[in-house]
């Protein structure tokens, strides 16, 4: 009996191992090519194919919406997905792997920076072509990229430093309002702030200044939490940060010059896909370098044992304040982007609901991991959009999923994993 079981197990292992082996030599470049082929196919063959399969239009988010609304269209949608996405993404990388491995190796030897730039260019191309199909996709993609920044910045505090900070909606609000006030004051004629103070064509060029200002204001706000964190940890810090969040929301609701609870609207339309993409890449790159730096390792030391870290010459106060300011800065930048994507902010956006959403992304994706944050933010954002037709049952399915993840992987899907760009872009050939 035992022998038979172990025999089966071994057989299974070889099968899954064979599949894994055949794909283990596929470099990232080839995967990107697969995706590129898929989105190009969708762009050029998508429309005739939808007509052929009897679908009303190209499925916006991989068909989830169509399938949930009209179950009769399931076979057509599945066929569409198979032809457009699944087959190219499986076949193209496998076929191109040898060629692209050589190319990736050559690029890597010439200059890793060039290789990274080419990878990013490909990634942007894929996203651009994918989002070009509909405005809904574009909006979802922008919000998803912003969610990546927010999740990463919260992971610095909650994952790498091990605090339970609830203040992120507050930082987002500070960034969103600061950036909005900046652009509305200088580049827009509106009723709240009067006519534009600077010529409007300068707007897109000075927009990064608005975002950075938003980030800086959020970072200044973070001092209010960083200073109490010297004396207290855990639950008390959670309360302090929660109180901070409520205080920020309440202040904004009472400030008449930003129109109180009615919120600010008609922000200029500066945030197109390249802007969000560049800021997201910058955030991932800088945050990844930060958590791999000496300060980043000091964060882990503070999390695991503050007293021991102190004894081993880690300046815990400096570490904490740097982490809070850094995370708040990126949250502020994300807030500024968020305000300009939606072109409307009001204080009630930045409440408990937002907090639950961001915390869910961090803990779903994985603590202490850049991969995890990206996966958590992307999957929960897309899932939230894809399950929209289920209406309120969406808010039963997503929480259930999170509970299951917490029970079986308490630190999240991909926790404690280093994000190494050099390993990613390296050719995957066995030598």
């Amino acid at each position: 009996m035992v022998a038979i079981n172990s025999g089966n197990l071994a057989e299974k292992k070889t099968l899954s191992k064979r599949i894994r082996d055949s794909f283990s030599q596929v470099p990232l470049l080839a995967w990107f090519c697969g995706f590129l082929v898929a989105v190009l196919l969708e762009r050029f063959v998508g429309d005739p194919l939808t007509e052929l399969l009897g679908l009303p239009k190209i499925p916006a988010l991989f068909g989830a919406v169509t399938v949930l609304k009209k179950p009769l269209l399931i076979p057509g949608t599945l066929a569409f997905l198979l032809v457009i996405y699944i087959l190219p993404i499986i076949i193209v990388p496998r076929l191109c792997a040898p060629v692209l491995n050589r190319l990736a190796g050559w690029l890597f030897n010439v200059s890793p920076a060039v290789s990274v730039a080419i990878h990013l260019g490909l990634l942007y191309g894929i996203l651009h072509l994918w989002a070009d199909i509909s405005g809904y996709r574009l909006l979802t993609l922008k919000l998803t990229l912003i969610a990546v920044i927010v999740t990463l910045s919260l992971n610095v505090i909650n994952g790498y430093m091990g605090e339970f900070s609830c203040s992120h909606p507050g930082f987002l609000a500070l960034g969103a309002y600061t950036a909005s006030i900046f652009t509305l004051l200088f580049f827009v004629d509106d009723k709240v702030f009067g006519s534009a103070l600077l010529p409007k064509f300068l707007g897109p060029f000075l927009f990064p200044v608005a975002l950075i200002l938003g980030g800086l204001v959020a970072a200044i706000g973070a001092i209010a939490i960083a200073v109490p964190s010297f004396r207290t940890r855990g639950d008390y810090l959670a309360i302090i940060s929660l109180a901070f969040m409520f205080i920020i929301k309440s202040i904004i609701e009472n400030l008449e010059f930003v129109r109180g609870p009615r919120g600010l609207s008609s922000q200029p339309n500066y945030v197109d896909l390249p802007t969000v993409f560049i800021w997201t890449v910058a955030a991932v790159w800088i945050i990844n370098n930060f958590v791999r730096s000496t300060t980043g390792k000091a964060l882990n030391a503070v999390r695991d044992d503050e007293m021991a870290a102190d004894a081993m010459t880690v300046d815990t106060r400096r570490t904490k304040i740097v982490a809070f300011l850094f995370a708040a800065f990126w949250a502020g930048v994300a807030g500024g982007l968020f305000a300009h994507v939606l072109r409307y902010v009001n204080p009630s956006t930045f409440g408990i609901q937002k907090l639950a959403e961001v915390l869910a992304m961090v803990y779903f994706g994985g603590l202490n991991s850049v991969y995890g944050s990206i996966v958590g933010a992307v999957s929960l954002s897309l899932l939230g959009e894809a399950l929209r037709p289920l209406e309120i049952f969406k808010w039963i399915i997503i929480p259930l999923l999170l509970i299951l993840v917490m029970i079986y992987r308490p630190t999240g899907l991909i926790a404690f994993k280093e994000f190494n760009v050099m390993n990613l872009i390296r050719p995957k050939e066995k030598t």
Partner: protein
Amino acid sequence: MTYFFQNLINALQWGSFYALIALGYSMVYGVLMLFNFAHGDIFMVGAYIGFGVATGLVSLASMGALALPNWLILVLTILISMFLTSFVGMIVERVGYRPLREAPRASAAITGLMIGIILETGNLAILGARRVSFPALIQSTTYDLGGVFVTNKKIMIVVVSIALMYALHLFVRKTRWGMAMRAMAFDYVVVPLLGVPINNIARMTFAIGSALAAVAGILFGVAYPVLDPYMGIIFGWKAFVAAILGGRGSILGACLAGFLLGFIEIFVAMIFPSTLRDFIAYSIILLILTFRPHGFFGEPYSARLRL
């Protein structure tokens, strides 16, 4: 001066809701060192169960099936809802907290939050997006005490909550189960080794906390007879703040802080415009925690804290 006393009465009533809910947070914290973030929504579920039971009993009484005076219906409603809601608490413990006892504490916080969302949405899905109104079980009578108007409802609410707090205090201090709870709060690791059944104690703690939250829900329904599925969020978070402010795991602290929070909110609204209520209330809490980082009765950061 009468204005002051009038608001004092209101603050006592408002604070007793917070105190009753905060007790649930505090007890669970004492035993498991975890916060039950679904507790605010258990309060909401308790209020709805109370609504269902009260409506059922009232309709039975009106059909003549059982001849009960209204006060007896209220007492029965409270008892039955306490019993039923305690099961909700036990289910939350079984599903969301027992599998995660050894996990990082933040993970349990996430499951708690998510169970809360499921409870809200489930309620919304079952009952639909309309507010229900709690049946009026007590005829409101107003007494005039030298210019201060006191309704019998307010007296009842304050008296019932303080009586329950005292009963809980007696339970924790005088019974074997209470002793087990205190022992667990004293040392989470060794006490189970000495034969105290941790699963039973945890389940019981959740059950008692949820029963108290159900009472708070019914009392809230008596005072403000409109219920909606999201009413647990604000109350839950504020009671959580009160539980922390009282010092983690301290029952007396949770009661006092609950009342304090009620006083702060009512008196801030009395002096300042009511839109500033949250701002000033949370600023005061921030100040208190800056000077007393461990709350009123909490112990300082210790090695046995699981972080």
